[in-house]
Every structure is written in C-alpha cells, then in structure tokens.
C-alpha cells in the first residue's frame, strides 16, 4: 500500500532550479500522469521519487516513511525508463530476473516468478532471446515484466512509449491501463504527450518551468484549464487565443478585439478587475456555418471525422474551427462565423491565470 506525498520539493542543478517547490499527494492505486513540455522538471520530479536524484529541499514520503535518504532499491518501487534500459548482454529471462537475483532469491522461485510475469505480458516465447532481437513492442513488454516481477507498490514510468511508432503507442496505452487495473498499484507516469495523459490518467499534473500549473482529472483540465499554458497545452488543434479588452455595453460584458466583438455570459465576468484579457476558445466551439462575423478560409485540413478550417478575419487575425466534414469549404471562400460564448475561457493577459 503506497501513497506518495511530496512536500515543497526543490531540486537545483548548480545555479539552475529544475523543480521549484512542488507539493503533491498521490493516492494509493492512482494512475497519475505528470505532463509538460521538455525541461519542465517532470523527469527530475520522477527521479526524486525514485531516488536517482536527491532533492535539494523538501520531503518525499512513500507510504508512511520519509524516503529522502533511502536507497532507490529499498523504496519498493519499479521503474520503466524512456530508453527501456534493458541489459543488452543478458537474455530476456535474466533481464526480468535481475531484481530477484539481486535479492539472492532461490533459483526455483526466480523461475516461477519470471514465468508468471512473462505470461502476464504475453512474452513467454521471448524468454531466451536477447533484447536486441525483440521488436519495439516486445521490448516494451519485457521492460514492464522486469518491473512487475518485483511486485512493487509504485510504478514509475518515464516516457516509456516514446520509442514506439504511433500505432503501437496507441495500443500500448490501452494495455498499460489494463495493467494498472489488474495490479492496483500506484502508477506515476511522465510524458510530454498530452494525448497520452488524457487517455490514461486518473489525474493529470501539468508542469511548466519547474512548477505545477494544474492538477485535476483529464476532463477537468480540458474543460476548465486554470492557466493559459494548460489551455494551450491540451487539445488538438491548439486552442484559439485572442488578445483584447473587456468592456460592457448596456451592462452586458463584451469582449473586444480589433473589429471583433463578442458578448459574454454575465456571470462569467463578475470577478474580473483588469480589463486586458486573453480569450481562449477551442476549435470545436467555433462555428463557421452561420454567424454574424465575416472571415475568409485559408487552409482546410480534413481529418476524416472532422475538418479543420483555418480562416482569417479583421486585420490578419486567424482562428481555427473544427467542423463537420460534410461542410464543403475551399480555401479562399468567404464565410460567416460565430463563437460559442458559453465555452469561452478568459485569461489574464499579464500572468495567464484563468479569470472566469
């Protein structure tokens, strides 16, 4: 049973601060995904949990003991590395058995446990091959088997799917989720891929610049991003952002940006003091089939189930809309568009915090 508690965790490398004070509670059995752009401190955070890095300040608790000074091997966790870190000079069997051999386990038991782990991940036929004879997906399973064979309470994963091709990566997502359901262990998973985070996580931690931007369930984060950074990080295509000011006409709040004016629901702007804001709206909440605003289509990207329409309006401002593929629009076409006011996000122009 292991929940993890990070308290004011700081890591400095020389003069650069990689992690700037993180506090986080990871519950037992949770699938937690830390996501962020490269260099945001997510891997450093993971390495501090694993013990490969020692925190400069702060406290790490696994279960009910403080593990700051506990050797990585004694923390009761397993880890899958970005490059998988399979030992190239050992057979798959010996790779999986490594942790058991370290504990000087009886050979009989080693055999049983390695086989059980291999069976769970469908790699029994590979046991006597070398890692370099395995395909990408197979290597992935070997790395997972090597981790589960020790029965750790916590699984740490550092972008484990990044070496796979796109198709396999999607399949492995499902498989990892299934594995999590079966093992009921705590998973801490680091990735820079927002789609991975959305699909697998129970909860997502978004990090940027060594700090936590937002913690929440995938849908929470998608629907109510707390900062402009989070809003821009999740969702394909990237959320539309328009800089402008808030004014009011006849008591109704209005967002004004160049020639564009949008009236917003009243309750959403109640607590806003500064009137310089950024308005964010996802492409699916932009409609181009009807509306009062005039634009001109530039680029059409058909996705199959939908099409993305990039269009210009006003003084070379650009928006993207996700529309039904049946809607035939060609580049250069004039169109009338509208924004769904109820789905607009407002962010502070100076610090990017959510305002509504």
């Amino acid at each position: 049973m292991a929940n993890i508690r990070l308290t004011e965790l700081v890591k400095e490398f020389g003069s650069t601060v990689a992690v700037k004070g993180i506090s986080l509670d990871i519950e037992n059995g949770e699938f937690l995904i830390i996501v962020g752009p490269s260099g945001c401190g997510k891997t450093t955070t993971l390495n501090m949990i694993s013990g490969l890095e020692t925190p400069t300040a702060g406290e790490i608790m696994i279960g009910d003991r403080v593990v700051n000074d506990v050797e990585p091997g004694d923390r009761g966790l397993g880890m899958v590395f970005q490059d998988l870190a399979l030992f190239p000079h050992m057979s798959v069997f010996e790779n999986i058995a490594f942790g058991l051999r370290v504990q000087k386990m009886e050979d009989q038991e080693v055999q049983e446990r390695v086989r059980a782990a291999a069976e769970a991940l469908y790699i029994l036929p590979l046991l006597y091959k070398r890692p370099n004879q395995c395909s990408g997906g197979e290597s992935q399973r070997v790395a997972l088997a090597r981790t589960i064979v020790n029965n750790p309470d916590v699984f740490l994963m550092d972008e484990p799917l990044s070496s796979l091709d796109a198709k396999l990566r999607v399949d492995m997502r499902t498989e990892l989720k299934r594995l999590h359901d079966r093992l009921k262990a705590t998973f801490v998973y680091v990735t820079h891929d927002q789609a991975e985070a959305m699909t697998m996580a129970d909860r997502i931690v978004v990090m940027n610049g060594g700090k936590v931007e937002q913690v929440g369930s995938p849908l929470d984060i998608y629907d109510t991003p707390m900062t402009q950074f989070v809003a821009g990080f999740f969702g394909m295509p990237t959320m539309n952002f328009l800089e402008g000011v808030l004014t009011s006409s006849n008591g109704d709040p209005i967002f004004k940006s160049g020639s564009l004016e949008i009236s917003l629901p009243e309750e959403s702007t109640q607590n806003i003091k500064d009137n310089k804001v950024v308005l964010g709206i996802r492409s699916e909440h932009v409609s181009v089939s009807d509306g009062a605003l005039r634009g001109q289509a530039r680029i059409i990207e058909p996705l199959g189930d939908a099409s993305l329409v990039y269009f210009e309006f006003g003084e070379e401002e650009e928006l993207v809309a996700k529309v039904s593929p049946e809607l035939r629009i060609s580049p250069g076409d004039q169109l009338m568009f509208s924004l769904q006011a109820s789905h607009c996000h407002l962010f502070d122009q100076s610090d990017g915090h959510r305002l509504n």
Partner: protein
Amino acid sequence: MVLSPDTASPIQSKRQAMRKSRRRTIVRHTILILWGLLIMFPIYWMVQTSFKDSGEWVTWPPNWVPHSPTLQNYGQIFTFDITKEGVARQATEQPFNIWGALGDSVLICTLSALIALFMGTFLAYAISRFNVGGSKFRHSVLIIRMIPPIVIAIPLLMYYAIMVPLAAETVLGTRISLFDTRVGMSLLYITITLPFVIWMMLTFIEEVPYSLEHAARIMGAGRMYTLRRVVLPLVASGMVVTFLFVFILNWAEFLLALTLTHPDVTTLPVLLNKFQSASEGRLYGPQAAIGTIITIPVIVLGMIIQKHLIKGFSFGTIRK
C-alpha cells in the same frame, strides 16, 4: 543508319573519359603497389635472413632468398643448452638465447597491461559517472605521450637506483633497489600507459547508457554489483582492445627498458639491441630470428585491433 557527328561525339568522349579513368586507376594501383613493396621489403629481408645459414648472412652480392633455408637460427635462440656445438662456434661468452628475455617481456608487458587496465577502467568509470578530477586528464595523456622518454628515464634511474635503496635502508634496514627489476619496470609501464587506458576506456564506458545503471539501482543492486554485472560485461570487448593496445606499447618500448634494466632483467628489444652493439662478428641470423619473433605477435595483434589503433595514436581528435 549513319550516326551524325552530334550523337557520336558524346559517346566518343564518354569512351575517352572511360579510358582516361581506367588509365588513372592503373597509375594509382602501380604507385600503391610500389609503396607496398617498399614497405614490405625490410620485413621480408629480416624474415628471409632468419632462415639463412651463417655463411649466407653477409655475402656480396647478397642472396635475395636463402639458398639453403635452415631453422638453425631459431634453434639457436630457442635452445636451452647454450653449450651445444652449433651455438658455441660464434657464441662468444654472452648467452644469446631468448628464453629469459621472452619470459621477462611477456611477464612485464602482460602484468603491467593488466594492472593498468584494472586501474584505468576504474578511474575512467569514475570520471565518466561522477566527473571526478578528470577535467584535465586528456592533457595528461598528451603530455606523457609527448615527453621524450629519456627525460623520464634520467629521474627514474636516480630514483630507482639511489633514492629507493636509501629510503629502504633507513626504513626497512635492507637495501632494496627497483633498478633492473621486473617490479620497477612494471610500475613504470603501468604509470605511463595509464593515461591511454583511461582515455580509451572512457570512450567505451561513455557508450553505456546511464539508464542501465539506474535501472539496476532501482532494482536494488549495489554499486559494485552493477559494475560487475552490468557495466563491465558491456565494455568487455573494449577492455580487450585496450589491453592489446597497451600490451603492444609495452612490448615495443625500448628506451626505458634499455636504461633501467640489465643485466638481471632484459626485454626483447633490449636483447636485440645487445647483439647490435657487438661490432665484430654480429650474429645477423639469430638477430633476424629474434626480430621476427618480436614482430609477428605485434603485427597479428595490431591487425586485430586495427580500427581502434587510430584512437590510441590520434587521441580521439579524429572523427570516425
């Protein structure tokens, strides 16, 4: 159909170009083969002399192939009993059988290469993984390689022959000298080859991803266990190459052995030189046999590690 001049000329010029390029290739090969012959000639001359009878060693005009090939020279240098008739004829007093020198050379070179390999690998690992005191080590390789060995030999002569015995006498009460000892020679070889070992092993160790060690550590393996089970097996082939390279360096080393040994310890190059100094009645045949014995293992080992040789000689400044 008649070819118009317009279409004929490109074909012709193409043919001309081909002929020109073939001529070029022939010229190239001729030059290269000539150089190859030039290169191989001294070695050929040594090997064929080693099969010549004593009457053929120095004749005018010289014989380009031994007229009556014989293994007598090899018999002489490999004999155990130097009083045998064939040896005694020209032998003078100095024993010139090879066993002593061969034994010393093999022992000193192997032992010092092994110890240097052990220490150097260990340090290379520490430099690679903890960045320990190694920022300037690169220069130390170059410096040790560039200092004329004679400048090292003079201090060492004084040190081995004077200071160590004096120190030993005051501390232990007995005179112990490192001069003309296998230990003294080995210590020296270890020290001067260590920078090479560190340099070469570092390139091999850097190729082992850190994540392998991290993975082992997470699975509870200690530092030593990881080193033994994960890192060393992965750099084993690199260690073999490094060992051979250092062995060759030691095997060929002459000046330090000449100045710091003799009469008790003799390495093969020193033995060969000893024959040379006898201006009268030089034993060309046995010399050639010794030369052949010294050279062949080095050429064989050198060919095995050929592509790594450049690393040792060019200090990694060349991209490969």
